[in-house]
């Protein structure tokens, strides 16, 4: 079974999606600080910092893979951004808009597979689209004053790549690891485990 019976969200879908998002909201909050702190380390070539960008896109992919319902990827990504702003973020309330934008990207990846497949291709497509959305948003929001060839282009490409790898592949591995612990037993992602 790769699909739950209906598209209606059960309470457990809502709460677990929210918990994933909230947990990542806290991680975002911490990641904002890490991002700022590593700015020095990347000073030789700041666009390279985009390599660690993918972390910001994990909740969308993870939420989509775990909940497997239309809207899950968007909800998780958006709520995670919202929570990180609630906890205090240097990017301001605009980060909420950004989360929504990225969430739409992540959601489209699963929609493209008509919410039927939750394997690597879907995860990677979702992550890539989320990365694209993020990269476009950032170009306008943050990097408008930078040089196109030496800065904006590399940032764009690295952001999308980082998203695909960290959020796409990483999100899938994380889902599998979570399923292995038994916490996803009530989700399709956690079924098919041995009897004891």
């Amino acid at each position, binding site marked *: 079974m790769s699909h739950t019976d209906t598209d209606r969200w*059960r309470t*457990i879908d809502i709460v677990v999606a929210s918990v994933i998002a909230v947990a990542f909201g806290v991680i975002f909050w911490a990641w904002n600080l890490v991002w700022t702190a590593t700015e020095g380390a990347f000073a030789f070539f700041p666009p390279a910092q985009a390599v660690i960008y993918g972390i910001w896109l994990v909740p969308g992919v993870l939420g989509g893979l775990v909940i497997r319902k239309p809207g899950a990827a968007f909800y998780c990504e958006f709520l995670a951004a919202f929570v990180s702003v609630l906890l205090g973020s240097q990017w301001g309330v605009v980060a909420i808009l950004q989360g929504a934008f990225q969430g739409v990207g992540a959601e489209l990846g699963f929609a493209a597979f008509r919410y039927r497949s939750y394997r690597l291709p879907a995860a990677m497509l979702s992550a890539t689209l989320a990365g694209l959305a993020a990269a476009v948003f950032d170009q306008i929001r943050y990097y408008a004053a930078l040089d196109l060839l030496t800065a904006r282009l590399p940032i764009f490409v690295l952001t999308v790549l980082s998203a695909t790898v960290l959020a796409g592949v990483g999100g899938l591995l994380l889902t599998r690891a979570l399923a*292995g*612990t*038994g*916490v996803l*037993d*009530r989700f399709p992602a956690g079924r098919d*485990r*041995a*009897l*004891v």
Partner: protein
Amino acid sequence: MGTVRLRGFGWRHAGRRAWAVRGVDLDVERGERVLLLGASGAGKSTLLAALAGLLPTDSGEQEGTVEIDGVDPRKDRERVGIVFQDPQTQLVMARCGDDVAFGLENRGVPAGEIWPRVDAALRRVGFPYHRDRPTAALSGGEQQRLALAGALALHPGLLLLDEPTANLDPVGAELVRDAVALAVDADTTLVLVEHRVAEALRLVDRVVVLAPGGGVRADGPPGEVFAAHGDELAAEGVWVPGHPVAPRRARTPVGDRLLTADRLGLPPRLATTELTVRAGEALAVLGPNGAGKSTLALLLGGLLRPGTGRLTATAELAGADAATAPHRWRAPALAGRIGSVFQDPEHQFVTGTVSEELALGPRRTGQPEHAVRTTVDGLLHRLRLTRLAGANPYTLSGGEARRLSVATALATAPRLLVCDEPTFGQDRRTWLELVDLFADLRDAGHGVVTVTHDADFVAALADRTLVLERADARR
């Protein structure tokens, strides 16, 4: 309202071969007050969840039927209120009043009626604070009472309580029982799960005993059931009143000092405490909720850094490491010397299966693999967990989880054992086994420190007691 009808009911949790509960036929009429008994793992919590309609079809397999007032409780939960064992996971909102109002909002109670009903429910359970108080600022007993108020505010026809006084100090437990006694009226059916029968008897007029293999073992008024089946039930693990347990006094004289706490404290959780722990002695730490007992246990276990004062180990316990404080020892060395059992067993689990959980400690302390296997098998057998060796620790019943957490601390054969509430939620049989286990350890020259609210346990085992008070009571 509130009649229960079970016909051939059975439930098997997803991922399990064995049925958690099976072959139960039961009728409970409106206004009856039933005490549901049974050995640990007999399926009491599962049955309550079924009555509350909280066993989703995708989480297991059902046999037979459950009906509350003639309908499947999954379809219509209006009539049922349930309070789980762990209050932490059932508070939903950040403020006490909002939490009680939550259920009323869900059921579409008109806005004007909500707050009067909230206040009435809080009054009925004797809740001492204003409804604006943050739920995070409540002690365990207060949380338990709030959860009860949340269930009562809905005016349920059927009230289900799963060990509502576990982990409460005797005063707090009595308060919750009083609240229940006040709250149930002729229209409310009550089904209560509680291991300690004696305290719960005044709340009920009927007992139902689940048989471990399936079906109902005994059913009727408490007096009759215990008169007819008392001895067998006691042997099977039910706490039958009037079947006292024999104390286990120390057979060997008290040995050397192991640990000394010198003005040890961790403000604001624990006020300064003086304490000596000796080999061959069972020390019980008592005190009300929030007195800092668990904090003391973690300090003695070398897991927390003391805020004030010092904790020193003797060479008898720590050899060359005696010069350093336990919280600075490397973890493998610590695990070989001091075993800790946490208050919440689930806080202690770090692996995915019961047998892995038991093997972890011995492996980390460097035992060879065959010795690890022997240790694990021995403990599984002794604490009756063999059947569950491959199960995920987090799916165990309350009592099973507690046994596993004790077993993990024993696995490294530490010289000193520090246990936080090792006997709560245990049936009589496991309880006796635990007493024997600890007594044997003590007689073999180990030190045993137990934090507990369990007066029977203290009477049966403890050589010495230490009573902590709440820090605010002293000021």
